[in-house]
């Protein structure tokens, strides 16, 4: 991690926090901090990505502004996370996409949508695009399956590659000090922490989602969104098995497994993303960072659009609107894949890395001994 003003500010705050430690019950950041006396740039990147932005420490802080120590940890860590996303992005020149990310995501979305619609309307007969279709293979009449598979897998494959390289860069930078490599047990614990969003529980009492008061709403909305996303992904996997192994061709009936999973996932995604958007706008801006606001909102809106068009497509798949809706929905999905490594989504990748690091460095070695002194 390069030295920047944000890194210097994060170091100043951690040195104050480490002399106080009142917040150690809120989340993993503070116990991780207490394992250190000095904070390298890499340490600060790790701690910033370990922070889940629950904001408990801001409202509890006796040194929060207007106190002269001006301690605003959630804001500084959010700024540092934004810088770390640029630091680890692959390929490096595309790190620039994290600047004005909201605009970038909107432009990608517009471009992809325009391209998909132009291609469909240019290459297909109007009767195919605007006419109703029924029975097996109805979708593939509008957009051939091999085109869907080719474009989708190239885009998604690239996203996975870029995210994996980003993860490796983050890990190589921040986990140098680990005395023991992160083994299966650390991964298992980290995945459990991530799946339960354990660090968004504010020590068991909820987080400061909107203001000084505590609630679990943000955590549950994130669950709805995340597990909605997972269910949609599962729907696609089941459909792949249906198609390629069982030879059952989409569209599938309403009460089939892929449609049930996709519907449930879509609803979860929609509830989660819209809820999180409202929370993002309604919450106290004091502990937040403006740097990430555009990226946050763009990604949530994109996910909501994917979910909404997917549900709409399901509802209207027997009508003449199907052709255009399919194109629009797949356009949104393609745009999502493309911006995956260059937008808000990366927070999950680095957060998971930080949780693995935390699990590894706090794993009891023998009779309460700690892996890092």
């Amino acid at each position, binding site marked *: 991690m390069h030295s920047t003003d944000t890194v210097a500010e994060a170091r100043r705050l951690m040195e104050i926090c480490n*002399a*106080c430690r009142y917040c150690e019950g809120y989340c993993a950041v503070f116990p991780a901090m207490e394992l250190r*006396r000095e904070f390298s740039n890499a340490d600060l990147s790790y701690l910033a990505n370990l922070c889940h932005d629950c904001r408990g420490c801001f*409202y*509890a802080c006796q040194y929060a502004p207007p*106190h002269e120590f001006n301690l605003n940890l959630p804001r500084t860590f959010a700024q540092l996370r934004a810088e770390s996303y640029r630091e680890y992005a692959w390929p490096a020149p595309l790190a620039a996409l994290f600047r004005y990310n909201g605009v970038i995501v909107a432009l990608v979305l517009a471009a992809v949508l325009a391209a998909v619609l132009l291609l469909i309307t240019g290459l297909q007969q109007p009767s195919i695009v605007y006419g109703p279709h029924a029975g097996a293979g109805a979708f593939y009449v509008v957009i051939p399956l091999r085109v869907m598979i080719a474009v989708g897998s190239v885009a998604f494959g690239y996203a996975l590659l870029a995210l994996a390289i980003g993860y490796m860069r983050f890990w190589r930078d921040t986990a140098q000090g680990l005395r023991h490599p992160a083994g299966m047990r650390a991964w298992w614990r980290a995945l459990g922490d991530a799946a339960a969003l354990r660090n968004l529980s504010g020590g068991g*009492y909820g987080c400061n989602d909107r203001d000084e008061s505590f609630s679990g709403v943000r955590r549950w909305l994130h669950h709805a969104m995340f597990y909605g996303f997972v269910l949609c992904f599962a729907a696609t996997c089941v459909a792949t098995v249906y198609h390629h192994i069982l030879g059952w061709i989409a569209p599938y009936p309403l009460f089939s497994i892929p449609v049930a999973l996709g519907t449930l996932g879509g609803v979860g995604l929609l509830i989660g993303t819209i809820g999180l958007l409202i929370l993002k706008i309604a919450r106290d801006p004091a502990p937040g960072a403006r740097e990430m606001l555009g990226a946050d909102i763009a990604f949530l809106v994109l996910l909501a659009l994917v979910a909404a068009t997917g549900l709409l497509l399901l509802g209207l798949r027997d009508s003449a609107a199907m052709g255009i809706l399919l194109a629009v929905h797949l356009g949104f999905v393609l745009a999502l894949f493309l911006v995956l490594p260059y937008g808000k989504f990366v927070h999950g990748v680095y957060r998971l890395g930080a949780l693995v690091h935390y699990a590894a460095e706090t794993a009891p070695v023998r009779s309460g001994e700690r892996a890092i002194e």
Partner: protein
Amino acid sequence: MTSLAGSYDVLVAGGGNAALCAAIAAREAGASVVLVEHAPRAFRGGNSRHTRNFRIMHAAPTATLTEAYLEDEYWDDLLRVTGGETDEVLARLTVRGSAPALTWMASHGVRFQPSLTGTLSLSRTNAFFLGGGKALLNAYYQTAERLGVVIRYDTEVRDVRLRNGAVDSVEVASAGESLTLCAKSVVVAAGGFQANIEWLRQYWGAAADNFLIRGTPYAKGRVLRNLLNQGVMPVGDPTQCHAVAIDARAPKFDGGIVTRLDAIPFSIVVNRDARRFYDEGEDLWPKRYAIWGRLIAQQPGQIAYAITDAKALTLFMPSMYPAITAATIDELADKLTLDRVVLGNTLHAYNAAVRPGRFNDKILDDCRTDGVAPAKSHWAQRIDTPPYVAYPLRPGITFTYLGVKVDDKARVVMSGGTPARNLFAAGEIMAGNILGRGYLAGFGMTIGTVFGRIAGAEAAKHAQH
């Protein structure tokens, strides 16, 4: 916002833990309550902002406490630290009241963190607030607002007018405007006077100008002085205050916990003249840290420097300020603006007196000096490994002991010995009744909570009759 004008059943002067406990207790007893806090909202809560835990009697382990801590042991601890300067009736009332207080606190929004196993070794006796004192205050303010307590920030109580042994009216100042409020009962929970440098100067002279105040700048003691001037019986030694050595770079007020420095047992401490003046290794640090504020207050210029070397750097909790380091003692003397020759001699004499021993920072080890005055009794190691390290120190004042006398119903007692009819006190303003001397971690919050609840309930009861 509700208008300040009008009359209330209960007026609470102050905005810290004791004030909130009193306001909530009075409101829940059915009284209409106004709470008058001198500080603006951002700095509300007095010194409770800087607290972290609460000392509590308990018979068995709980989610937030280990083992047991029974009344007799609690009382013995109090007797030991106060040297008997305590009122046994009020003290035992507080100790017994601490057990049910825990449930009450939790049911009024206070969150606790699981029992600690760290360096503080207080997990048996003290329950820790999740996020510390400010989080506790946030919870109480939210509860008070929900219950309908009227809260006025930026409003200072100037005069609690006593007439014939009862409060007749209360004069407050808000935004430069003076207002008179009427209340059937008044609870004063407005703290001590440690932030009133002028008052401290009465006892400490010009030295007080060099004191740093660890907590709120709003603890001016105006209500305390006002009541004592009107014939309320004082309690506690007015000249005494709890003073520790803190980093001299700390702000004048409100530096709180992060300015604390635990380096002294592993250092030598010299004054402005570069000379040592007290045994730095006299006893375990938790038993000695509270004497160093006074020791430094008695030194010229009220400044001192803890000096050690690279060997000691990881032995104490980090403070928020970086160590002042130097490759040589001369360079360190220059950085601290101390006399090179005297500092060199002081260090030489100390190093020459260090006897071989087995160093152990956890116990009273056998590393001591022989033939230097003052001696260093434990953890004495030669200071000879660069980089040399120093921290500047000043007295940091935590609280004062002077207060108003109260009875077991938290009623303020007049100098004739009779309690005022409708005036109650809670928190630091009356803590001197129970903690007349010394310090017991988390006990101030216990006094505030227990007496806050008593004062609030009694004030409401009086108002309703």
